[in-house]
């Protein structure tokens, strides 16, 4: 199910391209905000929760998920280099699964790790806040990567759709329409974080059983469907 050559090509493509700069910018920004907030406001659980929930989980994790998830396959489909993977006796689901592993690893590295560091800076993991949000970031990394990898496989405008989902659906609709929050990776991951953190530190609109089921369901279905789409990927449509 895992092909080390596909993995190598994927992570080199992801970390070598210009778009990778954003992967570094957002975590640096988060840590900088954490340092500034700590310096001006001191250690405060509520503020720490606000920064990690409002910026790290709501903005940074989905954005990095979009970059890593769509970037793991989208550019190869766009420039046609995917043909060198497809013209091989390698099972298509293996290609997708391997790319998912790489996208998840990159998203976790660039979102969960800085979330933990920022949490430590903000309040030294008081009330388990740093750990809780880090777990939320880890869990969200998996679902976002699967979702955006699927988008990258089926659409040439994956980044746009990914951003619309992450910023418009989750951030805007999520804050205006309570029902939209049920269908939000962010809320599902916060539901997991809620269990870890101290009483009242993290809140989610979705119960843990439903959130877990949806996280697993979305990841599995998106990965399976991406594998099916890759099996039938049509490389020529120009003529």
């Amino acid at each position, binding site marked *: 199910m895992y092909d080390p050559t596909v993995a190598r090509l994927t992570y080199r493509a992801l970390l070598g391209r210009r778009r990778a700069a954003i992967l570094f910018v957002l975590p640096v920004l988060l840590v900088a905000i954490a340092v500034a907030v700590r310096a001006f406001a001191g250690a405060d659980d509520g503020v720490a929760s606000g920064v990690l929930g409002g910026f790290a989980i709501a903005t940074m994790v989905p954005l990095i998920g979009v970059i890593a998830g769509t970037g793991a396959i989208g550019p190869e489909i766009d420039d*046609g280099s995917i043909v*060198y993977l497809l*013209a*091989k006796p*390698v099972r298509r689901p293996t290609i997708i699964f391997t790319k998912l592993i790489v996208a998840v690893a990159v998203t976790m590295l660039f979102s969960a790790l800085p979330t933990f560091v920022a949490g430590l800076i903000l309040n030294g993991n008081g009330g388990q806040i740093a750990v809780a949000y880090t777990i939320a970031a880890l869990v969200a990394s998996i679902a976002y990567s699967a979702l955006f990898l699927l988008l990258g496989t089926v659409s040439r405008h994956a980044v746009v759709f990914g951003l619309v989902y992450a910023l418009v659906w989750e951030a805007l609709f999520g804050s205006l329409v309570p029902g939209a929050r049920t269908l939000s990776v962010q809320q599902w991951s916060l539901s997991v974080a809620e269990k870890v953190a101290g009483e009242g530190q993290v809140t989610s609109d979705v119960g843990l059983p439903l959130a877990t089921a949806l996280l697993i369901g979305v990841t599995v279905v998106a990965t399976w469907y991406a594998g099916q789409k890759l*099996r039938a990927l049509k490389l020529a*449509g120009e003529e």
Partner: protein
Amino acid sequence: MTTIEIDHTSRWFGNVVAVNDVSMTVGPGVTGLLGPNGAGKSTLINMMAGFLAPSTGEVTLDGTRIWRNEAVYKSIGIVPEREGMYDFLTGREFVVANAELHGLGEAAAHKALATVEMQYAQDRKISTYSKGMRQRVKMASALVHDPSVLLLDEPFNGMDPRQRMQLMELLRRMGAEGRTVLFSSHILEEVEQLASHIEVIVAGRHAASGDFRKIRRLMTDRPHRYLVRSSDDRALAAALIADPSTAGIEVDVAEGALRIQAVDFGRFTTLLPRVARENGIRLLTVSPSDESLESVFSYLVAA
């Protein structure tokens, strides 16, 4: 022996029919797929390569369906026309990755790089390669598993004459070894130099198939049209029409020129300057008015 069979295959994109009820068999040796730009050659190659599903009909490799069948890539090597090819890798890393995806090691990659004579630049990034070098590395990636079928989409595009000769020599060798080599081109001379067997595609239809010389004769024996301006158009017309190589002449008053239809291309091309000289007529313009490949192909389709 490996054979690709295309059986009553069509492919359309929305309302556009790119390939229209084509049947052909591609066997060992070098086959040229010839046709003007946009004729459907790439679509056909993509169906043979398993990158595109036929809308109707079937494309098979030794009786096995190619579409959605990863196992066929054990026997097929593909050189795509598009340039995207992991530019951030070196040539060696690229070919090694291709070998690994076939379950092979570095030795296979080195052998393929040696075959295309690219060892000298193998440690340079692909992004620094010239068009010809990229083409050769693509070839190496296609040859790495020693395939019995090689499909190349417009492999000579953008290559300089020396690189073209090298690649032709390589393909000739592959064909002589008994591999099934199919390459597409819109340039008659390329196909003429390399393939003894050609398949002609025009506007998605299979226009001709078989020995190149026969098809070439069909193409060159067709009536040729010329636009000629001279110091005395009517005297020239009178002298030319007396020869059987000329089928018809029209005096185009508006253009101030003669429109000549020649039936014997070879004879007419020597006749025209001779007649002009003998009659003391100066030729001001001699331009073939239907020399484009498209018109050659259209004639072939109509024939």
